[in-house]
C-alpha cells in the first residue's frame, strides 16, 4: 500500500505491463493532528470513516503512460458535474509534469475488488484520492526519468521532466511517449517515491477550467442515453398513480403492443414497461395502457399526516433548565433530489451475462444487486459508469439500472430505459420531510447548552454508505447505534462554544422512496441552528455577526465569517423590506460562511413570472470557503455557486406536496428549483488561502450555510422568523397534472412557445 514512510515519502507500485503502468492503493490520507474534545467530528468525521473503510480492502488504482505521450487514469468514482475528472487530471499533471491536455480520465467500471472504495458520496473523492493518485503519478515520473537516463546517456539527476518532455543539460529532449515502453516493467514491484511539496506546486491550486468543457459545449459529451448500444431501443415504464403502487392487471396489452413503433410491452415489478422505436412512441404507449393498480406504500398520506407521524416520533428536548432559553421548531417538507438527466440506464441482458451502462455513484452495490436479481454470478455482470447529468444524491441509487436489467431479461432484448420527468418527481427519490427542534440555554454572557432534536422520515442509506457505517459502527465512540444515527452524528458538528451540546436523530416511516440530497441532514439542521443563533442574538441585543464571531471555536471558522462580513459590508443600511443574513457551516474538514441580501418588498415578491414562483429575491450573496487545500479553486467556486442556488431553492421555493399518497409535482414548472429569475445578480465567492497540506470536501459544502443565511435574511427583512420550508409551501402555485395516465401528453407548441 502507499503507506506514509516519511514526511513526503510513500510506497506504491510499478506493474508488469507492456507500457509504463504505476499504481497505488487508495489509503488513509495523512491524519490531521486533532486534539480530543467533546466534538466527535473533530476526532473522526464521516470522511475519516469512509477513508478508513477503504484501508484493509482496497485494490490498486493505476496510471498508464501511453506511447502517444498521453497519460490514462480510470477514476473509480462517478463524475456527475462536481469536477473530479478535472481535479484528478490536475493531480496527475502536477506529479508527472505533463500538460493537463495530455491526461485522459475515464470512469472505471464497477470493480468489486474495491469493495467500499468505489462509492462517490460524502464529498469524499478528493479527500480519499488526493495522495494515492499523486503517488502513482510520481512513481511514473521517476520511472520515466530512469528510462530517459538510458536513452540520453545521462544520470537521472541531470535530467528534468517538464511539459511531458525529459531534457538533459545540453537541451536534448525525449518525449514521455517515446519512453513509455522502455520505462515499463516486466514484474510488479514496490517502489518508494517522494511527492512534490506544496510550495512547489504549479498545477494544484491554480484555477483551471474543466477538461470536459469543450465536449459539453459542442454537444459531444455522452451521457447514458446518448450511448449507441446496438439494439437498445427506447423503453419507458407506465407507473402507478400512488407511491409504489403495484400492477393489478392490464386490460389492453395486445392493443398497445400493436401501436406504431412499439416492439414490446411487459409487466415488471414497478409497472408496465414499453419498448419502442422512439421515446415519443413509448410516451404514447404508456398513456394508452389501461392498468388496474393496487395500493402503494404511502396510501392516503399527506403532508399533514406525515407531520403528525413526525410529531409522535419526536424525542423530548428534556427538562427545561431554570435559566433563560430560546426555543424553536422548524418543518422541512419533502424535496426532490432529481437531476435534469432523469433516472436512466441501458441494459443488455443475455442468458449467461449482462452489461449495464448508467451514471452510478455506488456501482459495486448496483452490480451485486442486479446480479442477484438476474440470477447471474457477479462476475458475469459488467457495470459501466457513464458520465452523469447531475446527481445531488439521486445517483447513489440505481433504480433505473435495476429496472432496465429486469426488462431486458424479461424480453430478451437490449433496452435504453428512461424515466419520464413526471415519474422522476412522483416516484423518484425525495429528501425526507423532517422537523428540527432547538433549545439554547444561556445566562448572562454565557451560553450553557445547545440541544437539537431532528425527526425525519427515514432516509434510505442502502446504497453502500450504510454498509460502510454498519461495518465500522461498533468501533466508533458513539455507542451501539444504528447507521442513520451514526451518519447523523458523524456529519453534524457544533461550531460554536455553546456549552453542553446534544443532538439526536429519530426516524419514522419507511414507506417513501427517499435518499439523501446534497449535504444530507445539514441544510435542515444548520438552517434551524443558525435561525436560533439569530434568535439568541436578538434576545440578548447582540449583533448576529458579532455574536457568531465571538462564539466560533476555531480560527479558520472565524476567518471565513470575518471575510464575508467585510466583503459584504455587514450591517450596511438597507431599505425596509430588505435585509442581510449571515450564517456559518463546517463539514467535510472545510469551513464556509455566507452573507445574503434579500429583497422581500411587495413589488419584488409579486413581480410577474409566467408559470413560476417569483417570491423574495436574493439580490446578493458573498460566500467564503476554506477547504484546507483547494486543488482547483475555479472548480471549488463552481461547487459553492451550485450550493448557493440549492440553498436559495430550499429556503424559498423548492418543495414537494404530498396528497392522497402521491406527490403533486410532475414538471420543472411545478417543482420550483432556482431559475434565472431567482438567481442573485450579484455573487461573490472567496476561496481562502490554503490552510492545510490536505484538501477537504467541497461538492456538498455550499448548501448548508446558504440555506441558513437566506432564511436568516428573510427573517430579518420581514421581522418574522420563518419556521416552515420552503417558505411558500402553503401556497400551491400550479395546477397538478392527472396521475392516470401517469405522464402528460407531449405538447405541440414547441415552435411557437419556446421562450
Amino acid at each position, binding site marked *: 500500500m502507499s503507506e506514509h514512510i516519511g514526511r513526503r515519502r510513500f510506497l506504491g507500485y510499478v506493474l508488469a505491463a507492456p507500457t509504463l503502468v504505476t499504481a497505488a492503493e487508495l489509503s488513509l490520507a495523512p491524519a490531521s493532528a486533532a486534539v480530543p474534545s467533546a466534538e466527535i467530528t473533530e476526532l473522526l468525521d464521516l470522511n475519516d470513516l469512509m477513508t478508513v473503510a477503504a484501508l484493509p480492502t482496497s485494490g490498486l488504482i493505476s496510471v498508464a503512460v501511453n506511447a502517444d505521450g498521453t497519460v490514462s487514469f480510470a477514476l473509480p468514482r462517478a463524475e456527475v458535474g462536481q469536477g473530479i475528472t478535472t481535479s484528478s487530471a490536475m493531480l496527475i499533471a502536477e506529479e508527472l509534469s505533463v500538460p493537463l491536455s495530455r491526461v485522459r480520465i475515464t470512469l472505471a467500471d464497477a470493480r468489486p475488488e474495491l469493495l467500499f472504495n468505489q462509492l462517490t458520496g460524502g464529498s469524499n473523492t478528493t479527500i480519499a484520492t488526493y495522495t494515492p493518485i499523486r503517488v502513482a503519478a510520481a512513481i511514473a515520473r521517476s520511472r520515466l526519468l530512469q528510462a530517459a537516463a538510458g536513452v540520453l546517456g545521462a544520470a537521472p539527476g541531470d535530467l528534468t521532466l517538464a511539459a511531458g518532455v525529459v531534457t538533459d543539460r545540453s537541451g536534448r529532449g525525449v518525449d514521455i511517449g517515446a519512453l513509455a515502453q522502455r520505462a515499463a516493467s516486466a514484474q510488479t514491484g514496490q517502489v518508494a517515491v517522494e511527492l512534490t511539496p506544496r510550495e512547489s506546486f504549479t498545477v494544484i491550486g491554480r484555477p483551471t477550467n474543466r477538461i470536459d468543457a469543450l465536449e459539453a459545449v459542442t*454537444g459531444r459529451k455522452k451521457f447514458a442515453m446518448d450511448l449507441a448500444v446496438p439494439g437498445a431501443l*427506447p423503453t419507458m415504464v407506465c407507473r402507478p398513480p400512488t407511491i409504489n403502487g403495484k400492477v393489478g392487471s392490464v386490460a389492453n396489452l395486445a392493443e398497445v403492443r400493436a401501436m406504431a413503433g412499439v416492439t414490446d410491452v411487459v409487466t415488471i415489478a414497478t409497472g408496465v414497461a414499453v419498448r419502442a422505436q422512439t421515446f415519443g412512441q413509448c410516451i404514447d404507449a404508456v398513456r394508452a395502457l389501461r392498468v388496474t393498480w393496487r395500493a402503494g406504500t404511502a396510501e392516503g398520506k399527506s403532508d399533514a399526516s406525515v407531520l403528525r407521524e413526525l410529531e409522535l416520533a419526536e424525542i423530548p428536548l428534556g427538562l427545561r433548565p431554570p435559566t433563560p432559553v430560546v426555543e424553536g421548531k422548524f418543518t422541512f417538507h419533502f424535496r426532490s433530489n432529481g437531476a435534469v438527466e432523469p433516472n436512466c440506464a441501458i441494459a443488455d441482458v443475455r442468458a449467461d451475462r449482462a452489461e449495464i451502462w448508467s451514471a452510478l455513484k455506488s456501482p459495486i452495490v448496483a452490480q451485486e444487486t442486479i446480479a442477484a436479481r438476474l440470477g447471474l454470478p457477479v462476475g458475469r455482470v459488467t457495470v459501466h459508469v457513464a458520465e452523469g447529468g447531475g446527481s445531488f444524491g439521486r445517483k447513489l441509487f440505481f433504480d433505473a439500472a435495476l429496472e432496465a436489467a429486469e426488462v431486458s431479461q424479461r424480453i430478451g432484448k437490449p433496452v435504453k430505459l428512461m424515466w419520464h420527468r413526471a415519474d422522476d418527481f412522483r416516484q423518484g427519490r425525495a429528501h425526507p420531510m423532517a422537523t428540527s427542534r432547538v433549545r439554547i440555554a444561556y445566562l448572562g454572557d454565557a451560553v450553557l447548552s445547545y440541544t437539537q432534536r431532528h425527526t425525519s422520515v427515514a432516509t434510505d442509506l442502502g446504497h453502500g454508505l450504510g454498509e460502510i457505517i454498519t461495518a465500522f459502527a461498533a468501533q466508533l465512540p458513539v455507542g451501539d447505534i444504528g447507521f442513520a444515527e451514526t451518519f447523523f452524528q458523524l456529519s453534524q458538528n457544533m461550531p460554536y462554544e455553546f456549552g453542553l451540546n446534544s443532538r439526536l436523530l429519530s426516524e419514522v416511516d419507511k414507506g417513501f422512496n427517499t435518499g439523501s440530497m446534497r449535504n444530507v441532514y445539514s441544510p435542515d439542521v444548520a438552517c434551524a441552528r443558525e435561525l436560533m443563533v439569530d434568535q439568541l442574538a436578538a434576545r440578548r441585543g447582540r449583533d448576529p455577526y458579532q455574536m457568531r464571531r465571538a462564539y466560533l471555536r476555531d480560527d479558520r471558522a472565524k476567518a471565513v465569517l470575518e471575510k464575508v462580513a467585510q466583503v459584504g459590508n455587514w450591517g450596511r443600511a438597507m431599505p425596509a423590506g430588505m435585509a442581510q443574513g449571515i450564517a456559518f457551516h463546517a463539514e467535510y474538514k472545510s469551513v464556509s460562511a455566507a452573507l445574503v441580501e434579500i429583497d422581500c418588498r411587495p413589488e419584488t415578491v409579486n413581480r410577474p413570472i409566467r408559470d413560476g414562483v417569483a417570491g423574495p429575491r436574493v439580490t446578493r450573496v458573498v460566500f467564503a470557503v476554506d477547504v484546507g487545500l483547494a486543488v482547483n479553486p*475555479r472548480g471549488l467556486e463552481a461547487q459553492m455557486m451550485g450550493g448557493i442556488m440549492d440553498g436559495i431553492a430550499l429556503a424559498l421555493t423548492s418543495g414537494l406536496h404530498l396528497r392522497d399518497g402521491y406527490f403533486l409535482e410532475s414538471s*420543472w414548472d411545478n417543482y420550483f428549483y432556482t431559475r*434565472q429569475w431567482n438567481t442573485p445578480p450579484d455573487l461573490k465567492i472567496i476561496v481562502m488561502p490554503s490552510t492545510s497540506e490536505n484538501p477537504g470536501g467541497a461538492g456538498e459544502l455550499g448548501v448548508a450555510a446558504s440555506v441558513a443565511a437566506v432564511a436568516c435574511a428573510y427573517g430579518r427583512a420581514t421581522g418574522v422568523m420563518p419556521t416552515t420550508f420552503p417558505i411558500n409551501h402553503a401556497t400551491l402555485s400550479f395546477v397538478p397534472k392527472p396521475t392516470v395516465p401517469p405522464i402528460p401528453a407531449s405538447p405541440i407548441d414547441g415552435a411557437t412557445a419556446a421562450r
Partner: protein
Amino acid sequence: MPEHTFRVNGEQVTVDVADDVRLLWVLRDILGITGPKYGCGVNVCKACTSHLNGVAVSPCAIPVGELRPADEVTTIEGLAATVGRELHPMQQAWLDQDVVQCGYCQPGQIMAAVDLVRRAAAQGRAITDADLDSLRNICRCGTYFRIREAIKAGARNM
C-alpha cells in the same frame, strides 16, 4: 409510414416515421443527434432547445410532420458552422467562463442564449438583467450566475 424531409445542420435528411413523433425523438432516436437533451418532454425545462430557421424552439414539442423540406434545424452540433468557425462565440464564452458543471443542460442553454442575444440585437439593444431573468432553461447544478456572465461576454463577440 410517411416520409419527412427537412434539413439538419446544413444537410438534407429524410426520415420514415409517424407524423406526430416529436422532433426531439427524430433527432435523438432516429438520426443519432444527441446534443439536444431530454429533461421534461413538456416544453418546460428547455434542455432540448435548438433552432428552427434560426429561431429557438423546443423539439420535444414539435411534431415532425410540421417540418417542410426547406426548414433548417440547427442543433448544438451545427451551431458553430452557422458562423463558419470551430466554435460559436457563445460556445467560446462558455469555455472562457468555465460555465459547465455536469453539462447536461448546457447545449440547450447555449442555443437559448444565442437566440436571446439575436433578439436583443434585432431591437438594437444590449442584453439586460431582465433579459437574463427571462431565460427559462433549468440548470440543476446551479450554473446560472456563470451563464449570465457568459451571455454578456458572448454577446460582445456576436
